[in-house]
């Protein structure tokens, strides 16, 4: 494990407006840490505002980079969450 921990993985996180932030992470980092540092850079208080996607699948914040099978140079999409109920449409 000592050798593995020295290896870094470079990830890209792409926002909706095509701006890309680069992250250099440990394979054993928990995704939540990455998400939180991403949202603080985007000046959002809560990381749950963003939905993080890789290959169309939502990434779980509780898993590590290794568990999700992310490789060097992978690009993650960050989308702002959407909801709607239609109750505000009446004007």
């Amino acid at each position: 494990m000592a050798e593995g921990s020295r290896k870094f993985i470079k990830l890209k996180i792409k926002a909706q407006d095509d701006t890309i932030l680069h992250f250099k992470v440990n394979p054993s980092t928990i995704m939540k840490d990455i998400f939180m540092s991403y949202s603080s850079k985007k000046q959002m208080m809560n990381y749950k505002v963003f939905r993080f996607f890789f290959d169309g699948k939502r990434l779980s914040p509780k898993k590590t980079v290794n568990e999700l099978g992310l490789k060097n140079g992978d690009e993650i999409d960050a989308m702002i969450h959407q909801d709607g109920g239609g109750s505000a449409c009446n004007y």
Partner: protein
Amino acid sequence: MDQPVSMREYVHTSNTDDEAQKSNDQTIGVVFNADIHGSSNSKSPTLDDYSDFTMTCIVALDPILMLIQPGCATKIGTQYDVSVYSIVGKRYKRRVNILFRIKHPFERHNRFQVATELIDEFNKWVFKDVSSRRGRKSAYSKLKDSFEPQMDFGVVKVAEKDFFNIMVKPGRPWEDGHVNTIMYYLRKKAKYYPIPLSYSTIDCWFMTWVDNIEKQWRKSNCDMRSISPNHDIGQCIRAFKLLANIPWDNVDNVIIPVNISEKFHWFLVVFRIKLRCLHVYDSMKGGSVHTKKVNEAVGKLATMIPLFLTSTEFYGKKLDLYANKLPKYVHKSQSDPLDIKHMMYAPQQEDISNDCGLYTCLFAEYISNDVFDMHSIDIDAKYHRQRYATILWHYEKTKNKDGAISESEVTATVASKFGGPRIAKEHIPDTTNYPTPRQRTRN
């Protein structure tokens, strides 16, 4: 002549002391046989000459058979698709991941019917432990909210009970996860129906990408360089990016769920490719501000989709549109904006019911059954909320119960750097959260 000697030694040593006397007799017989063959110099002895050899002795001696142990093949049910046989060898106990054969939850529940026992069972589960405290965002306390094992809906992994509570409870607005899940399973339905159906769906992020690229395109004074087939939208059209995606040139209708976050509203747009028209199904037609916002969003779709279709060479793959001289195509340039038609008689939701996510999914499901005209359809919103939640829950529960997984539907992305589709990554199924497999007994 080495072979019979070594075999004789083997047989000699392998027998236990109790049977030493008996085995000695046997070995003598073996050697006798072998000597005859050896002296005749005709052939090396075959296995038939050793009548007392059991199968295990042969396997133990043979280096090739030792590697591949045939093991036993047990049939484990009819619910599974590919690996019906699990290989249980003596030495190799390799569990093959069981693939779930029911591709989508709609398969078992066609025609909008769900058994009432199932609904009752689900209600019992979902309304247990509902917290009575008001002002909470989630309907459960933090401890009661999570459940094991988590449910894998492809596009989203669910470990919170609140996901289902939002679906069931009237008045709670649906989020992107719910809409995307249903769109994903409808897409799978189109893909794996006995006869491939002629529609495709996309995730709700499509509108966000369209919104963004439209802004960039206008900013750069309609510079066509920003429209590339490798943009997210281009990838969607070419069947990458999303799970279980279908290329648009294989289908006739594309179902697009649209969220306008400023108005807190979902509605559905259907791109009828043969009519070159966008049909808008809006479950809440309201005031002028609302209509303006809807028109804005649909207008963006109408402008951007033809540009991307041109850049992804969609018309080259779909020559029949011109060959059949469809009136909508003959007199128009390829990149002209699409027509827009508002469906005036779409069923309307009740006020303050926050049902528009549900209505969007329902319209999509009706269209998946080739019902385009919905003005006569009566929708019982409460029942349908119940129904969607129940079938999703039931589907995942049966899947988890057997420790099965769905196959990977990853379509990968086009890495623009390398100019071509990247081969799908090795799929590492996450089996940590599934229940430990039950020991399969040999029959």
